[in-house]
């Protein structure tokens, strides 16, 4: 299974994502620059955290028009697995590949600490190795992570089971309905503010994020008729 980690100007979690793929599932992974115009060789695309284009105008606003994003759109439509983390989530919402938007934390502070999440939807390609309702420990690090959708869209998200993660304890940013991550209707595109790639070994404080990577490998293997791994 081939992974791409996208690199925009001022991405800064790209190395973490790359290493997380190597360390958790040992699959081939490449850094792919924002100018790339062909992602056809990749089965999964990771859009890492950071401050793409300096977060000018709005987080992710300018990155959504990078050449590589046309390919990401194609990959999403083709059902390939796409995970946006933090700034990657912001880019996916700006690109309208995921619903909603991420706005300034209600505290106005950059919040950087571990957070307990509830796995609300364990049927996505990235969350199938978790139990529904399981509590996991994944760090957050963001200043603009308050998820916003209007009431109508929120009802739709609930009806279509698109809420993937919620904050379990204190809501760190003022997100609507404590939402920490969502997916598209088809479940192949997931976005989340917390950083699973920073929680792949107990030495990092938690290894709860590792199963997002084993999940997607199993989802891919199942799709391609190969034996699944634990």
């Amino acid at each position: 299974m081939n992974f791409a980690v996208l690199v925009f100007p001022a991405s800064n979690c790209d190395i973490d994502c790359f290493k997380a793929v190597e360390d958790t599932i040992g699959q081939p992974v490449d850094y792919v620059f924002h100018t790339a115009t062909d992602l056809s060789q990749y089965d999964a695309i990771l859009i890492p955290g950071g401050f793409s284009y300096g977060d000018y105008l709005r987080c992710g606003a300018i990155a959504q028009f990078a050449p590589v994003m046309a390919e990401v759109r194609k990959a999403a439509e083709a059902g390939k697995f796409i995970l946006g983390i933090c700034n990657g989530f912001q880019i996916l919402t700006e690109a309208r590949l995921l619903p909603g938007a991420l706005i300034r934390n209600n505290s106005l502070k950059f919040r950087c600490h571990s957070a307990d999440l509830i796995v609300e939807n364990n049927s996505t390609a990235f969350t199938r190795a978790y139990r529904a309702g399981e509590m996991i420990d994944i760090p957050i690090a963001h200043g603009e992570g308050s998820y916003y959708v209007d009431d109508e869209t929120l009802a739709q998200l609930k009806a279509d089971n698109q809420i993937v993660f919620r904050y379990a304890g204190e809501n760190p940013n003022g997100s609507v309905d404590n939402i920490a991550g969502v997916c598209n209707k088809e479940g192949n595109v997931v976005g989340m503010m917390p950083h699973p790639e920073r929680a792949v070994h107990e030495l990092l404080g938690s290894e709860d994020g590792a199963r997002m990577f084993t999940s997607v490998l199993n989802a891919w293997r199942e799709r391609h008729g190969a034996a699944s791994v634990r």
Partner: protein
Amino acid sequence: MKAKVFVTIKENVLDPQGNAVQGALHTMGFAEVGKVRIGKYMEIELDTADRNEGEQRLIAMCEKLLANTVIEDYRYELEG
């Protein structure tokens, strides 16, 4: 031709920056201050003589990039 674009946060979306500025103004003694909302103001020079076409293209800029219509409203003025 010059365009002035005003981007504001939708009424039903929280504006924590506006709330903080409101608090500061109250602390400073400006007790008459009610709600404060913070937005963005942009000046854009357009190299076009056709006002109608210029306006249509400006709307496209607003819809695609300058505002995120999930959370923001925009309005504009065209000069010249």
